[in-house]
């Protein structure tokens, strides 16, 4: 026994000069690997469970999933569709993730996205502007819309300590029914036969990035840019640091002099603005007008996306792709196998359940590690 050397172990030797690393240090990699493994396992478990449900319904799960895959990635137009679908999902997921980083659970992404999309659309219809300016104006309007929709819940949280979970859920309903009223009574299209607004001007439409048959619009670039900016903000800036500190430990943050209330307030507003932008990219990129139920539940999908991505902005890109692909492939699956496209919502719900049973998965992984590869 050499306790002396044992004691010195761990003490740092002469400090190495900090050098640039291309690969993150092993601890980080291992931690990230574990997180990724948990998410992947949750995803696989949901697909398997979904397959069992399909089998119970009397559908061959392999045929159904094959159709889903075909519809998602089987052709250039399918790929393009998947990517276009991804765009609002990325922003919704990013919105939820940013909120979580700052310790607010923004369930109001749906409402903020609806309001943001509406404002972006109205700017696209009613503001005459040159093409170079028109899109930025629409995007700004939508972000402002999302932000405003998050403002009251954020203010209530800051001043009255009202839980944002409740207020933002309520605001989803307000947004939904307000939209219904507005498209029927106020901003009606000329023909009047649809409960929808006019189409937006050509100058407000997102141009194509990749031409037909892919037909991918520029929105994907905007979404990726948003991810990059948010990632930089969170990881590299002092405000991001404060937001993360607040998200991990409010007590330690306030004890260190960080204004926790303000950080949560700002996290919720930022989250709202991102959600609003998501609405705009959907409207100005693919739909071109707002109608009553134009969002197929992007807010809820955003929660699943962020959960699966462990609130990592870059990972949101990946998980949003998964959900975009499923949503896009669902139509073909419905046509060829008769399984309702709402099946995708079931899988989405399963993913949330499995990610939330993270501790169970960790336990499984640990067990697998202990027994070698037997269960892996």
């Amino acid at each position, binding site marked *: 026994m050499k*306790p002396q050397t044992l*004691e010195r172990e*761990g*003490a*740092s030797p002469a*400090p190495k000069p*900090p050098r640039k690393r291309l690969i993150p*240090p092993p*601890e*980080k990699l291992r931690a990230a690997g574990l997180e990724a493994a948990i998410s992947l396992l949750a995803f696989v478990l949901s697909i398997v469970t979904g397959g069992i449900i399909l089998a119970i319904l009397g559908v061959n799960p392999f045929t159904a999933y094959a159709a889903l895959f075909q519809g998602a990635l089987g052709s250039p137009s399918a790929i393009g569709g998947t990517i276009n679908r991804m765009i609002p999902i990325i922003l919704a997921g990013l919105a939820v993730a940013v909120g979580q980083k700052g310790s607010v659970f923004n369930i109001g992404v749906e409402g903020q996205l609806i309001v943001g999309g509406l404002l972006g659309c109205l700017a696209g219809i009613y503001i005459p502007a040159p093409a170079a300016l028109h899109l930025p104006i629409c995007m700004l309007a939508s972000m402002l819309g999302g932000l405003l929709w998050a403002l009251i819940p954020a203010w209530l949280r800051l001043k009255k300590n009202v839980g944002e979970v409740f207020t933002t859920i309520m605001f989803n309903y307000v947004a939904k029914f307000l939209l219904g009223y507005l498209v029927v009574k106020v901003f009606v299209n000329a023909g009047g036969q649809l409960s929808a607004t006019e189409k937006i001007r050509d100058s407000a439409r997102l141009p194509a990035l990749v031409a037909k048959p892919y037909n991918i619009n520029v929105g994907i670039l905007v979404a990726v840019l948003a991810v990059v900016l948010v990632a930089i903000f969170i990881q*590299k*800036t*002092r*405000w991001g*640091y*404060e937001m*993360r*500190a607040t998200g*991990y*430990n409010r*007590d*330690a*943050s*306030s*004890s*260190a*002099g*960080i*204004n926790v209330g303000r950080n949560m307030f700002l996290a919720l507003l930022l989250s709202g603005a991102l959600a609003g932008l998501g609405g705009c990219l959907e409207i100005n990129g693919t739909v071109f007008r707002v109608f009553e139920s134009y969002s197929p539940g992007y807010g809820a999908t955003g929660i699943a996306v962020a959960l699966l991505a462990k609130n990592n902005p870059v990972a949101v890109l990946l998980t949003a792709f998964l959900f975009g692909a499923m949503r896009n492939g669902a139509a073909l699956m419905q046509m060829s196998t008769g399984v309702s496209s709402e099946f995708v919502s079931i899988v989405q719900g399963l993913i949330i359940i499995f990610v939330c049973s993270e501790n169970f998965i960790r336990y499984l992984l640990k067990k697998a590690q202990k027994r070698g590869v037997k269960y892996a």
Partner: protein
Amino acid sequence: MGEDIIKLQGITKVFPGVVANDHIDLSVRRGEIHSLAGENGAGKSTLMGILYGLQQPDEGSILLRGEEVRLASPKDAIRHGLGMVHQHFMLIPKFTVTQNIILGMEVGSRLRIDYPRAEEEIRQLSQRYGLGIDPTVRVSELSVTMQQRVEILKILYRKAEILIFDEPTAVLTPQEIDEFCDILTRLRDSGKTILFISHKLAEVEKISDRVTVIRRGRVVGTLPMAETNQQELATLMVGREVRLGGGARRQVEDSGVLLDIRGVHYVNHHGVERIKGVDLQLHRGEILGVAGVDGNGQEELENLLCGKRKPSAGTISFLGQDIAGKSVKEIKKMGMGVIFEDRHKDGLVLDFSVRENLILGFQDQRRFLKAGVFLDKKKVEENARRLQEDFDIRCGSLDAPAGKLSGGNQQKIIIAREMSSDPEMVMAIQPTRGLDLGAVSFVQDKLVEARNQGKGVLLFSLELDEVLQVSDRIAVIFKGQIVKVLKNEGVTKEQLGAYMLGVAQEEGLHEAANA
């Protein structure tokens, strides 16, 4: 003294990554008070857990009264005449003493509990050992000391011959500790065998017949107390010489008033006045210890000073400026470093890396920023490396989450960070709580170092030993008032204890009884 009543042979217990007990041999004689001394994490609790049937050893055997036994659960242990008083009491506050004691061993018929008989039995036990417990009162009405005695009665009622006490004095005041020691002696004299687990050497020295020292899961030695002393035990426990109290002190030239608290009152949101007119001055180059029984207004005073709360009346002037109503951040900027009591709650973001924790609260300072917005990776790294070296933070990698470090190293992160901004004043709240001796002496050294540099150190501590070892002056807080400030010259624990309990107030000082 009798034969070996307990004999542990080659007890080994391995947890993932740690050998908690490494071939431990221990013999306890009938009718002795045998102390088990060791630092936190040395393996004392694991060993007692094994003896009490809470855990199973991987190797080794347990002999009770010369016969090998297998203790699969505490139930087995109790059947063999073992009893344990845990550090955290296991009592139901709404039940009476009797109800608590007989729980699981009710006397009487199937349908009816024979309370009078149980009460009588408990009353007799209490009298025999001088515990002074009324079996009919509710536990919630009892003080901590009395609750501890109920725990003792509980195991005596179960006919225990061997009594194990796990850090029993942690919750007691000095007077209460004296009484507690008397009780232990009485128990021993009536033939009980006592195993006393502690890392407080003063008590170990006072009551033990023999002491076994454990370090890193191994027995370092068993000594008759008459042949050893505290200093030797400390050296055995740590494995090298430790010196508590922080070492050499220098007189500083400028000993001006740094912090001036005048007539401060604080009424909490329930309308209860928790601070009732505190006057206190902290000078440069001194360590002012604030002693008191927990819950006499320390927490409120700490929060007032660091900016978490605003006083209802009075002024707190720090460096000549009134800080009443200033934010935590502003006060921090003025030069107050705070070592909070709860490392995990207030001191660290456990999910953050060591590197990130070392700038917590300073992330907005120009020295860590590029363009005023971006954290400068290089400077953050330099800061972390420098502090890691200066404060000997052992963390393997600076990327490791702070939550993965030992308590001592976590505390080093906090102290390193708070000292790194060269503050004028340091407020240290229970800075050595839960640390092992090596880390305790490190922390105390740093406090004295700060004092010698001409900073003011305000030390809140519930450990009187620490207050007496480290402070230049001692203020005693009682019921929201500073009832006494004394120079730390020839002050005894008993004197302090008397002030802490409000029994030794001087005439005309304060009225403390209007709570």
